[in-house]
């Protein structure tokens, strides 16, 4: 730089120094602002978010929810470890491996698994799984993280299976042919082409399953032990835990309204809502990617392809699996299993593709069989123990002695009333919204926002609806505990499903039909009423029936808003409370110590009711599919 003489150099230097001084002051002020803000927020949150001590009745009371959040995440993680491999294997089986006839059996079975009400899972977990774990592992109490994770895993299975199956189904058949024509085994094709191509959809499935697990209340509350502690050590899967949802479920009926504790519970609900919002946004984003045809974004592709990343992921996954297995099966078997997996991983280039295919398919069959076996065990246990309770007296009598004698007539009718009311409220709104989305609006900011809002509503934990209904209808509007409040809460809960299924049904009506009608001079409303709605009716009907099934089995939205423990006569006024089957089962199992045939009988009636509704939906869908495609 010969053209720069000394003075110029000095000047440049000086300018540079001055500039950096100003930069430094600017940075200081920015850091100061950040620090002050951060400090204020941290102080505000340290009592709530970062405090691990949840003890609202202590002196002084403490409302730290860190332990609850960590427990929630741990339980969900455990559920995923259990359900993701089983779920993916079953989805692969259904979409790629199963002969058509088997597929026709396995798919409805999975749908039935989705239809079992969560309170029945909780009941099963408490009575059967809890005591099994206690005896098998020789632990003080079967109510623990592991039990909760297993039950939540089972509950997340249908979501994971059906969403990933949809994703796998959407992969073009071309890929399979292209790969097979290169002399590659079918398993290699599945694992190296088809599954990676469906990565976005499959991850969305896992995340939705995670949302299902995080949002579940009743089952987890009945089997997790509910001690608000972080497991010690943190991988102790046999420790009792308490999730955010369970805290709401247990304490909402225990606190005095408008106390500090009451508001703290709403704080818990807010955090829960934020977590599920995050989850839903992620899955929404992933599914969008899937639909627009792009796979993983380039940057992520680079990660997944870098060797280091793979090793890191494998290592983390390995550690988690080892820890889980060692807790469940003991350290020795964990080492053996890990060694086997490791040997497979590192030796997989050596083993013949044929053998890899055989063993992988073997594992897939085993996983699918396990899923079906789980369903069979649950249903068998409940029906074998519950059917003896079913009698005319049981079905038509009124409860006596805290439900230990007498019947459940009022509960059966109450459930039907709740569901009928919910569907009456939600159908017009849901169908109207769906018509607006598909027929009137063009894709713009408003509709996109409304649609995202709808998707988010769909993932809201059901207990949050209950909390809202309690605070608004029961307390603020001073309706008291009443049927109408429960019906509205259930209506809100199933609204997104109704909107979505109606939308799908409307979209499947070919545009040519609309154009034909409009071309004849019909107005838009005439077209919708006379042409579009009738053709979409079967789909709408199926969606409505499925929603009814879901509403009939739900407990969390009605337990604070609509139900009483016992009642003699059928409710005739919407402002009077009702009895409901799912709550009755919950109340019986948690307050009445002896497990009687009455418990099982109630579970049988509840499952039979919900399954009947689901079967109606499955058959009507089949019927219409045949009709439409003939």
């Amino acid at each position, binding site marked *: 730089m010969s053209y720069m003489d000394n003075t110029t150099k000095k000047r440049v230097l000086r300018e540079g120094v001055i500039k950096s001084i100003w930069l430094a002051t600017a940075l200081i002020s920015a850091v100061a602002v950040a620090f002050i803000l951060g400090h204020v927020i941290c102080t505000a949150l340290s009592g709530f978010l970062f405090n691990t001590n949840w003890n609202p009745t202590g002196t002084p009371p403490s409302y730290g929810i860190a332990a609850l959040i960590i427990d929630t995440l741990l339980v969900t993680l455990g559920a995923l470890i259990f359900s993701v491999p089983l779920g993916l294997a079953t989805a692969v089986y259904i979409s790629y491996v199963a002969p058509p006839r088997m597929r026709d059996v396995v798919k409805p079975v999975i749908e039935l698994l989705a239809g079992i009400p969560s309170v029945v899972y909780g009941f099963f977990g408490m009575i059967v799984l809890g005591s099994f774990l206690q005896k098998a592992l020789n632990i003080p109490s079967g109510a623990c993280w592991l039990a909760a994770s297993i039950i939540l895993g089972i509950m997340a299975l249908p979501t994971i299976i059906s969403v990933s199956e949809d994703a796998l189904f959407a992969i073009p058949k071309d890929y399979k042919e292209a790969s097979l024509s290169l002399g590659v085994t079918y398993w290699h094709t599945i694992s190296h082409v088809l599954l990676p191509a469906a990565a976005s959809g499959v991850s969305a499935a896992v995340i939705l399953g995670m949302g299902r697990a995080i949002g579940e209340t009743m089952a987890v509350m009945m089997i997790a032990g509910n001690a608000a502690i972080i497991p010690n050590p943190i991988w102790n899967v046999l420790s009792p835990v308490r999730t955010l949802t369970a805290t709401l479920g247990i*304490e909402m009926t225990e606190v005095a309204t408008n106390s500090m504790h009451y508001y703290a519970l709403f704080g818990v609900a807010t955090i829960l809502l934020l977590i599920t919002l995050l989850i839903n946004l992620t899955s929404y984003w992933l599914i969008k990617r899937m639909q627009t045809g792009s796979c993983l974004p380039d940057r992520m592709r680079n990660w997944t392809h870098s060797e280091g990343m793979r090793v890191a992921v494998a290592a983390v996954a390995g550690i988690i699996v080892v820890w889980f297995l060692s807790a469940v099966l003991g350290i020795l078997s964990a080492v053996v299993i890990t060694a086997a997996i490791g040997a497979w991983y590192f030796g997989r280039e050596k083993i013949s593709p044929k053998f890899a295919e055989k063993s992988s398919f073997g594992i897939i069959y085993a996983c699918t069989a396990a899923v079906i076996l789980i369903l069979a065990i649950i249903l068998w246990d409940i029906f074998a123990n519950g059917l003896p309770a079913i009698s005319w007296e049981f079905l038509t009598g009124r409860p006596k002695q805290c439900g230990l004698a007498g019947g459940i007539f009022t509960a059966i009718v109450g459930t039907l009333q709740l569901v009928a009311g919910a*569907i009456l409220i939600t159908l017009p709104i849901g169908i109207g919204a769906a018509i607006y989305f598909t027929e009137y609006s063009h894709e713009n900011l408003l509709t996109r926002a409304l649609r995202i809002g709808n998707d988010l509503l769909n993932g809201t934990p059901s207990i949050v609806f209950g909390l809202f209904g309690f605070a608004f209808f029961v307390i603020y509007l001073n309706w008291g505990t009443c049927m109408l409040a429960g019906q509205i809460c259930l209506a809100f809960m199933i609204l997104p499903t109704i909107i979505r299924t109606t939308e799908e049904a409307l979209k499947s009506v070919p545009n040519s039909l609309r154009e034909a009608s409009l071309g004849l001079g019909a107005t838009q409303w005439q077209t919708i009423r006379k042409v579009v709605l009738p053709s979409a009716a079967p789909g709408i009907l199926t969606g409505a029936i499925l929603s009814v099934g879901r509403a009939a089995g739900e407990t969390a939205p009605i337990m604070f808003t609509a139900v009483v423990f016992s009642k003699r006569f059928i409710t005739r006024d919407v402002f009077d409370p009702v009895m409901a089957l799912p709550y009755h089962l919950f109340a019986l199992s948690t*307050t009445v110590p002896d497990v009687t045939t009455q418990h099982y009988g109630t579970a049988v009636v509840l499952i039979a009711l919900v399954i009947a509704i689901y079967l109606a939906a499955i058959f009507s869908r089949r019927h219409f599919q045949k009709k439409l495609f003939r």
Partner: protein
Amino acid sequence: MHSLKYFSKVSIAAAILVFVVLAVGCIDAVDPDIITVSTSTTALPAVQALIDAYMDNHTFADIQTKYYGSGAVVTAVSFGISDIGMISRDLAPSEKEGHIFKESVICHDGIAIIAHPSNTVDALTLADLKDTYQGKITNWEKLGGADEQIVLVGFNSASGTRTTFNKMVLHNEDASETMLEYNANGAVQRIVANTPGAIGYVSLGYATDSKVKSFTVEGIAPSVTTVTDRTYPISRPIIMITNGEPTGLAKDFVEFILSVDGKKTLANHGFAPA
């Protein structure tokens, strides 16, 4: 269009079903007299027994029950959600503000300390109990039993039983964080009955079962007699509250509870008369 015909058939069927469901409410040809009783879980079996007994003689009465923790019972009564409330602790001064509750003690309830039937320990002192529940004693060996880890079972925050236990045994200090928490006597009793190392506290009515054994506390065995004469150290009153003077069915039912028949029913469920 075939599917359309089928659809209309299905929807007519569905409509009929909905109609039947709604109309089924009219099967009961009576116009029932309805009140709601909120009760703390502790008093639930006894209250339910009182209601069953009352309703046997009053065919048109429908007394509904709902169970909560005691705090929520007070809320329910003060918001008019329930006509009568049963709480298993004293009303706090803050709860009385702005309301005129009519209170009457209907009975006394002992809190029994229970364990698995195989437990060899028979007697505990209040000090032992406090140390145990605070995690200072973690093995039954220390209490004279077998070498077995102690599993603490208790109630969740905000139950009246827990409040009483905390006051009378723990002197309002915190229990150990490892305590398993349940929200009903039934649940606590079942867990203790299934868990060899467990210790739990339940309402006396839940301790009579042979599935669990109960300890003597300070040398006194829990029973209706020892609670009645107040020699058993851990007991509390069950208080019935109404928002002002009860009327109609509520008044009649309250009178039944306080009658001789009502007291007999309570005693049968392990509650000591007031």
